[in-house]
C-alpha cells in the first residue's frame, strides 16, 4: 500500500481472472473433475461467475482511477498517512512495498504458466506407488463410497460387463471386498478397468497377483488415494508394465495363495490392454 506503487491493486483482479478463466475452460471441456470432485463443480462455476462480475466492477474502478492520474492514486488518499507512518516505523520503506508488488506480479506469471499454459493432466500412475500404505493394504482399504460404511451399490447388477454406467467401479468392488474379506463375492463375474499396480505382494518370479487400480477422489486430486481389486496372475510383471491400463474380465475366487493378505481375488479370463480413459478417477 505504498504510494509509489500504482499497480498493486491490479494483482488480485488479474489473478482472479486467470483462475476464473482456467476454471471455466476446464468446466466447459469437461475436465474440472480432474482436479476437484464433481459435486463441487456447480458451486465452483457459480462462484467464479459471480466473482468475474465483481472483479470486472473492481477493474472498472481501477481503470477510472488510473485515468484520473497516478498522482491522485486513491492509495494516497486512502489512509496514506497511517500506512506510511506504520510502514516507516518498522523500517519498511517504499522499496519493500515495491518488492512485494514485483513478487505479486511474479506470482501472476506463475499462475499463468500453471493455470493457462500447462496442459491439463490427471495424476500420474507413478504417484500411486508412492501413495500406497506400507502394509500394501491401501489399495483395497477404501470404504465403498462416502454414502456411509457398507454401501455396496449395484449388488444386483454385479455381472455388468462395462466399466462405466451403473456397473460397479473398481472402488465399488474394492469396498465390497473389504467386507468379511469379500467372501460374499466368490463366484461373481466382473469386468473392471484400471491401471496395473503392484499390490505389495512379491513381484518376483512367483508374483501371484497385482491390483487393477484407480485413484479415488473424495474432495480434490490432493486426497486421491489408489483403490484396487487384486487380480491373480502368476508372472504378471513380465507381461504388463506397472502404470499401464488394462481391462480385466474374470471371476472372483478364493485366493489360492494363503500368504496373501487378500482372501478373495479376481481370476482373469481375459485381459486387454487399453488406453488411459478420459476420466480416470473414481469418486
Amino acid at each position, binding site marked *: 500500500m505504498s504510494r509509489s506503487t500504482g499497480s498493486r491493486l491490479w494483482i488480485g483482479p488479474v489473478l482472479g481472472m486467470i483462475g476464473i478463466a482456467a476454471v471455466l475452460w476446464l468446466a466447459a471441456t469437461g475436465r474440472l473433475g480432474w482436479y476437484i470432485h464433481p459435486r463441487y463443480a456447480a458451486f465452483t462455476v457459480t462462484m467464479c461467475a459471480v466473482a468475474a462480475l465483481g472483479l470486472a466492477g473492481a477493474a472498472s474502478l481501477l481503470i477510472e482511477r488510473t485515468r484520473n492520474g497516478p498522482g491522485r492514486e486513491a492509495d494516497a488518499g486512502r489512509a496514506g498517512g497511517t500506512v506510511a507512518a506504520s510502514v516507516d516505523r518498522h523500517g519498511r520503506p517504499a522499496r519493500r512495498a515495491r518488492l512485494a508488488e514485483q513478487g505479486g506480479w511474479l506470482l501472476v506469471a506463475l499462475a499463468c504458466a500453471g493455470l493457462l499454459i500447462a496442459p491439463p493432466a490427471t495424476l*500420474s500412475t507413478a504417484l500411486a506407488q508412492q501413495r500406497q500404505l506400507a502394509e500394501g493394504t491401501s489399495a483395497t482399504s477404501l470404504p465403498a463410497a462416502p454414502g456411509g460404511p457398507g454401501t455396496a451399490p449395484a449388488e444386483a447388477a454385479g455381472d455388468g460387463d462395462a466399466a462405466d454406467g451403473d456397473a460397479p467401479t473398481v472402488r465399488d468392488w474394492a469396498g465390497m471386498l473389504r467386507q468379511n474379506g469379500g467372501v460374499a463375492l466368490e463366484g461373481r463375474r466382473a469386468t473392471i478397468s484400471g491401471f496395473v499396480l503392484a499390490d505389495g505382494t512379491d513381484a518376483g518370479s512367483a508374483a501371484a497377483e497385482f491390483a487393477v487400480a484407480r485413484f479415488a477422489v473424495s474432495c480434490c486430486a490432493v486426497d486421491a488415494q489408489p483403490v484396487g481389486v487384486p487380480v491373480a496372475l502368476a508372472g504378471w510383471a513380465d507381461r504388463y508394465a506397472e502404470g499401464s491400463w488394462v481391462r480385466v474380465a474374470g471371476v472372483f475366487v478364493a485366493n489360492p495363495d494363503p500368504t496373501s493378505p487378500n482372501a478373495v481375488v479376481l481370476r482373469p479370463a481375459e485381459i486387454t490392454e487399453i488406453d488411459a480413459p478420459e476420466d480416470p478417477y473414481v469418486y
Partner: protein
Amino acid sequence: MPSTARPARTGPALRIAFGAAIALALLAALLAVRAASGALLPGLPAAAADLVTLSLSVFIESLPFVFLGIVCSTLVRVWVPERVIDRVLPRSPALRRAALSLVGVVMPVCECGNVPLARGLMMRGFSVAEAATFLLAAPILNPVTILTTYHAFGWDHGILIARIAGGFAVANLVGWLLSTHPEPGALLEPRFRAACGHEHAAPGGRLRRSLEGLAEETSALLPALVIGSALAGAIQVGVPRELLLVLGAHPLWSALALMALAFVISICSSVDAFFILSLGSTFMPGSIVAFLLFGAMMDLKMLALLRTTFRGRALAYLAAVVGLSCLVIGWGMNLVA
C-alpha cells in the same frame, strides 16, 4: 488525513460499464490463451506434471471458497449496519467470543473462506481475539463439517463429539489468550493494521467501497493462495506419505504424525474426515481427532493466507498454541482409549 483529491464519486453508468467490458474482454482473452495453449505443448515429465496437477487442485478447490469468503466479508464490512451487530452479540467479552465461534453454523464457509471473513470482522472493529476465535472455530463448528464427520465416523469412539467440543474449546482458549495481550494490534501485519485503522473513515458510496474492498482483498489473498497451493503441491510430490504413516499406533507419535499430515496436505475441513477414513482404519481415535482438529485450524495453505494478516511471530505463537492443544486432546484420548 484521508481526504486528498479523490476521483469523482461515481462516474456515469456508461463509464463503469465500459470498464467492466474491458475486464470481461480480458477474461475472454485469457480463455482464448487457455484454449490455444492446450494443444501447443507436449506433456511434462510425470513428477512435474503431478506437482502442477496437485497445486492446481488445491488452488481450484479453494478459489470459490475464497471468493465466497470475500463476498461475505464485504457484506459484513460494508452492508451490515453497526447497530445490528451490537444488538445481536452479548456484551461480555468471553460470551461474545463464544457467540462468534458459533457464527460458522449460519455461515458455512470452510477455512480458506474464513480468512477474508475474519479480516472483514477486524476491519469492522472486532478485536483480534474475537476474529481469531471465529477463524479457528468456524471451520469445525459448521453444519457441513459436522455432517461429513458424522457420515465418516458416526458416533464411533466419540470422534465426532471430541471434534466439536475440542474445536470450540481450542478456539475459545486461543481467543482468551489473545485477549490478555496488552497490545493486540501489534500481532497484526502492519499493512493490514493500517487498513483496519482507516476503515471507519473510508469515504465513498457503498458500492464503490465494496468494489474497492474486492480489489484490496483479492490482491492480498490470491497471491498468498498461489504460494500456499504451490507449496502444498510440492510437498505432496516430495515427501512420501508413508513416512508419516508408518509411525504406527504409538499414542503420542501417531497423533503427531497425523497432525503433520494434516498440516502438509492442506485439505478442506469439510471433507477431511473422508480422507482420513480412506487412509485406513488402523489409526487410534485420539490421533484421528488430532488430525481433524489441527487440520481444520492450521495447515500450509492457511499459514500462507494468514500471513497476509498476522505477523510471523504472532502466527508462530498461534500455531504453537493450537498445535499443543490439539496434541493434548488427541494424546489424552489415545491414553484413555
